[in-house]
């Protein structure tokens, strides 16, 4: 890490590489960016942090000409420019690696690289030139990829390299990376940071969007914080601390610990033995999982996204077939046959708060009351549903779970993320299940709601129920779980008690490194393993 002489960009002689003035952007009724101004000095890495939906991606997309701002001005190296489309941005030397990659899957790496940057009408010369150029870039930045591989055949880590190569091939000297490490293992992330370091040394300007304070502290020179569409602060990284940034992000002091009594575990509720999952492409996703969860405890499952946690939740929730053994309260559960679906899981007393509530947990166009019976809609008898009673019940439930506004006839899409999550929790917890599965309970949820949601989960535990918590936020796991298991490459790498471990140890386990923390080969191997499995695992 290096300290810039002029962190906040107040220098007199050097023009900022990028300056945004008063940028505003609305998507219909949503004000994604409000009067945002920012200056990024050349040759620096500028971090942008902010909660989900804060407007980071929107701002960068405006800079890249993907969206057009409603108002505001963009200056590149001191001169005002207009960026009506990405072509213009590329022309100004801007390259962007999107949060969701923009690659053509059936095309080869080479075809993706030249797309839009071809020389002349015929492909052959362009391809030849790109092949040579790619080789040069690979050597220079250690960005090795097979130019003839199809995108659909390579892992996400590789795909990200292709995106970076695309930008470099277009001779970008301002590079924007939107949450590049979300899908990477720690080892891959480290390698990415080495590349970024080198690019900065060559004088390129980099904007890095991330949620991870650790990364901000590690690599950036300056950091800007966004909240609810506004830019709340820009500070030199050296002059700040993670706690301070977190506070800026959410607008008030963050409680890093959850208040809870010690666990009082009872009988075993969930027993998993030798659980295996092979996906439709024939890749093993779970390679023999053994786990138990007892009544009155929260088992936290940590791991980098894409290491099998999602699959495990899906198997338990009934949406994915598996082999092996699962017993609930001693009773075996059907894993492949007729009764391996969400409905019979619920009948067994398993409730499931899915990782992606908008995709799985809710029907966004359904009303709130319909969503409060979603999955349990077969309960009750009679040919027709008693809509009035259901509506009233839902309103009461929403009241108890502090859903705002508590109007049961609004469609789910008109609630904010946190309130949507509360609707899901209300539905699942109010059924008083024996086992609650929760995936990413606070993803994209604002801090007030986070506290409430955590309290509800702890309350369920205290009522003697078993909880299996999956989260990519180590902090959340450490503060909420009574016991932590770490998953890597479809296996459980180990179990720890939160009081007896720390982020470093868990981080190593998450990278597949057990025993010898210093063994570099193990780490590299592990990273490659992870990469091979990560096909297409994008999580919004």
């Amino acid at each position: 890490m290096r300290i810039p002489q002029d962190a906040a960009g107040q220098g007199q002689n050097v023009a900022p590489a990028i300056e945004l003035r008063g940028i505003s952007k609305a998507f219909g009724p949503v004000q994604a960016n409000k009067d945002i101004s920012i200056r990024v000095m050349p040759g620096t890495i500028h971090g942008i942090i902010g909660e989900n939906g804060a407007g980071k991606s929107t701002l960068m997309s405006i800079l890249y000409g993907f969206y057009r701002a409603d108002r505001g001005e963009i200056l590149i190296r001191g001169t005002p420019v207009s960026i009506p489309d990405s072509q213009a941005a590329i022309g100004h030397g801007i390259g962007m690696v999107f949060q969701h990659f923009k690659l053509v899957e059936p095309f080869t790496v080479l075809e993706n690289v030249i797309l839009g940057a071809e020389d002349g009408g015929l492909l052959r010369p362009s391809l030849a030139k790109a092949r040579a150029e790619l080789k040069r870039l690979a050597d220079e930045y250690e960005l090795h990829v097979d130019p003839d591989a199809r995108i659909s055949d390579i892992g996400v880590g590789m795909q990200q390299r292709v995106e970076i190569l695309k930008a470099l091939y277009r001779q970008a000297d301002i590079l924007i990376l939107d949450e590049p490490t979300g899908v990477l293992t720690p080892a891959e992330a480290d390698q990415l940071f080495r590349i970024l370091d080198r690019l900065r040394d060559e004088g390129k300007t980099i904007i890095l969007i991330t949620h991870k304070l650790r990364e901000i502290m590690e690599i950036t020179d300056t950091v800007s914080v966004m909240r609810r569409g506004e830019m709340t602060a820009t500070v030199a990284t050296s002059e700040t601390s993670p706690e301070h940034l977190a506070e800026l992000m959410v607008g008030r002091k963050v409680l890093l610990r959850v208040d809870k009594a010690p666990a009082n575990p009872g009988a075993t509720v969930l027993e998993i033995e030798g659980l295996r999952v092979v996906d439709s492409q024939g890749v093993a996703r779970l390679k023999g999982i053994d786990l138990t969860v007892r009544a009155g405890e929260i088992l936290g499952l940590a791991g980098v996204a894409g290491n099998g946690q999602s699959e495990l939740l899906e198997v338990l929730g009934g949406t994915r077939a598996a082999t092996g053994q699962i017993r609930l309260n001693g009773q075996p559960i059907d894993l492949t046959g007729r009764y391996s679906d969400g409905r019979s899981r619920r009948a067994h007393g398993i409730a499931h708060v899915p990782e992606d509530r908008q995709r799985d947990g809710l029907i966004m166009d359904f009303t709130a009351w319909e969503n409060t019976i979603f999955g349990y809609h077969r309960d009750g008898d009679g040919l027709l549903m008693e809509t009035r009673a259901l509506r009233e019940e839902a309103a009461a439930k929403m009241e108890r779970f502090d859903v705002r506004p508590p109007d049961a006839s609004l469609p789910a899409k008109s609630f904010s993320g946190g309130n949507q999550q509360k609707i899901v929790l209300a539905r699942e917890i109010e059924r008083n299940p024996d086992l609650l599965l929760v995936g990413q309970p606070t993803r994209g949820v604002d801090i007030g709601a986070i506290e409430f949601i955590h309290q509800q989960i702890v309350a369920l535990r205290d009522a003697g129920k078993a909880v299996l918590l999956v989260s990519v936020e180590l902090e959340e796991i450490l503060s909420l779980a009574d016991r932590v298991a770490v998953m890597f490459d479809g296996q459980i790498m180990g179990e720890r008690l939160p009081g007896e471990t720390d982020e470093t140890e868990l981080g190593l386990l998450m990278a597949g490194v057990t025993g010898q923390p210093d063994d570099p080969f193990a780490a590299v191997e592990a990273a490659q393993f992870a990469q091979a499995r990560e096909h297409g695992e994008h999580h919004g």
Partner: protein
Amino acid sequence: MDRMPPWADALLVPLISLVLAALISALVILGIGEDPIAAVKLMITGALGSSYGWGYTLYYATNFIFTGLAFAVASHAGLFNIGSEGQAMLGGLGVAIICLLLPWPHWALALPAAILGAALFGALWALIPAWLQAKRGSHIVITTIMFNFIAAAFLNYMLVNILRPEGSMDPATARFPTGAHLPTLHEMLSPLGIAFSKSAPANISLFIALLACLLVWLLIWRTRLGFEIRSLGKSESASRYAGISPTRIIIIAMLISGALSGCMAINNVMGEAERLVLNATEGAGFIGIAVALMGRNHPLGVLMAALLFGFLYQGGAELALWTSIPRELIVVIQALVILFTGALDNMVRMPLERLFLARRRGRGT
């Protein structure tokens, strides 16, 4: 956080689209050198000016209610069923077989059996595309298009080689026995002292269609199955999560859709022609698409839109009879309605949304 109040989306957008379609239709009529106002007048008197006109308007509307509901039910499950035409043809085959199989003593016995036959044949014809979509991922739009053609060829074969009575030159079945003749509105209303044209084909099927509207409404908005159908239509992955089997719902929704299409044959084959002829559906399956689009897949909307199209059809027939405007004018109007309410609805919606947004901003929220 909606951009537009729901009533505007449900009423204003289709209404404006309809007005646009009407304006362009008027231009087309002008373009072929005719007088649009006179044409509309003739259509109105021809379709609504007499109980004869109403009889035909309601007869056509009955067809469109069935096919419109069929499209709507599939739509709720997220399926684009273009196959109503073929399913209705097969429904006709079912009706014909039932009606000719037994010497029916009374229509009250024949009707339920025929409904069963029509629904069964229509549903079975929808089952194959449904199964292919559910199990093999074959795009239902394409398979149902293909099945329309296959149905036409199949029916052609049946009528020419199997069902045509000995010595007849028409590729059509024999007349159904008198016991299988459905009461017409004339027959049903005259005991009530209402004089309704004797020669109009509207018949008891109209009431079955109205009943179907009610049943579809209950199915979609009041039953658990309907809940599941709508869930699947909105989000497949959420449905899976909720323990709703997409395969099952796709197949059930298409069976219902096909059965509704098939039931159209009660009206046109059993109620009107009283025998099965070639091309008995006359494109009603495709009009069902327009009807459902305009009616926003709601049975009430379908009913209104079906009446509108019934009016257009009967009015168009009158135009063809009394003026030199070819019946194809109706095809053009139908195309414009589909275009504006279905494909170009954003053209209307986008400015409206902006308008409502500006108004809301203006009010300072």
